[in-house]
């Protein structure tokens, strides 16, 4: 239902800091029809080629300035992930994603006031990583 909002096309990239690849990121819309405080983001899961990324390695930011881990976000009530804003999910992984073709799956789970079970949106995309220029193309 909201899977269509997950994992925006052409947003995967390896991230460089201090001259080295420190991890990778991808962008997504919220799997819901309105904005919510970060504390209502129930879970974010990333897997690469079927292997789940450790929860502790995942960071989220909707403004691209302040980043939170999933456990930190549980108490973050003053930052909102607005509807229509591309939120960024960063995975701390020195060296980034290796060159070649990968299947990357993103799941975003949020809590909703009036529905007992959390909402989840999931999408898998094929990601092609070209090194050393760190260019990428994402396909269906």
């Amino acid at each position, binding site marked *: 239902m909201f899977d269509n909002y997950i994992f925006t096309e052409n947003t995967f990239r390896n991230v460089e800091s201090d001259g080295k690849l420190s991890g990778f990121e991808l962008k997504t819309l919220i799997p819901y029809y309105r904005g*919510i*405080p970060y*504390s209502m983001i129930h879970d974010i899961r990333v897997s690469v080629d079927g292997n789940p990324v450790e929860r502790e390695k995942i960071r989220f930011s909707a403004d691209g300035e302040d980043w939170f881990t999933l456990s930190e976000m549980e108490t973050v009530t003053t930052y909102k992930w607005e*509807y*229509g804003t591309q939120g960024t999910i960063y995975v701390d992984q020195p060296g980034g994603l290796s060159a070649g073709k990968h299947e990357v799956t993103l799941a975003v789970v949020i*809590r909703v006031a009036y529905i007992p079970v959390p909402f989840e949106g999931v999408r898998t995309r094929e990601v092609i990583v070209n090194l050393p220029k760190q260019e990428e193309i994402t396909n269906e």
Partner: protein
Amino acid sequence: MSQIKRAVSLYSLQDKYARGIMTLEDLFSFLVDIGVEGVEFITDQMMQGTPYPSEGSLKNWDRLIEKYNLKPVCNDIFINTKLYKNRVLTTKESVKMLVDEIKLANRLGFDLIRLVSMTPPEIIEPALSTAEKYNVTLALEVHAGMSFSHPMTQAFIDVMKKLDSKYVGLVVDTGIFCRRHPRISKNYFLGLGMNPEVGAYVDNIFDQGLDPLQYFESRTGNAHVFPEDLKKLFRSETDMIYAIFCSGYENSKFEILDDYFPYIKHFHGKFYEMTDDGAEYSIPYDEFIAYLTRKGYDGYVASEYEGQRFVLFDQPIDDLGQVKKHQEMLKRLIQSTSR
């Protein structure tokens, strides 16, 4: 001619906004182009920072309302009772949130708030004096799947009748009047791999003049427990999800509302699919408008398009065309129905 007025909920056009294809101003401009009188608005959806938007956002709203001369009809709000992972908000916390939403609704020019289904009824009375002061009515949404038979809806209605204030009422969503299960939902789930027999099973329930909640209740004694012959058809999780979702469409008689006028402040004109002959596939709007007209209803019916939910990856969404067709249908029915 009927005295019913028309509005559009911007919920209908959310996809255009989310993907950055249309701005709030583009949406306002579209509504004016198709001759709409009023706008329904989810503040959390299209006004950043709600319930504390920036001065800039507020000024932009004022400018749009003045420029496009749309009447702010209904403000849809949500109390984030699940703000924290480890507990539900207390009544005091929820009341504070509701009070802030009332003030914002008033600032934006709304005199009606739609509270989403399952909003805790105990927060109404403590917020009533604020609602009166700011001239904002608090109305619970009666939505299919959570309508009159739902304990939380009944609890709200008990509070509403006890308070008996013109500032407390109901918003009814016409998804409770589905005579057929929405075809686009079935086709979407078939596209996801649903067993066609599950789709046919649900269609058959509606063909008998029932809805899934009524039928499951009659078969198993519990509206949320599936009969064995349905469960036998489940081959994948998709089949079960469809069976859960089908309870979100009810097949009630219009007369279920008889006892609730004048508590009814507003209608969500839910629609899933406008057909080529200008009707809604599931909901008989001709009968609905005739019923409201007989009742002397002179409030708004706001188009609320739900068809954008049933689109497979990267398929186009004709939300603009569907909203235009729904408004044309409402206009035709309102003009041709006499009291």
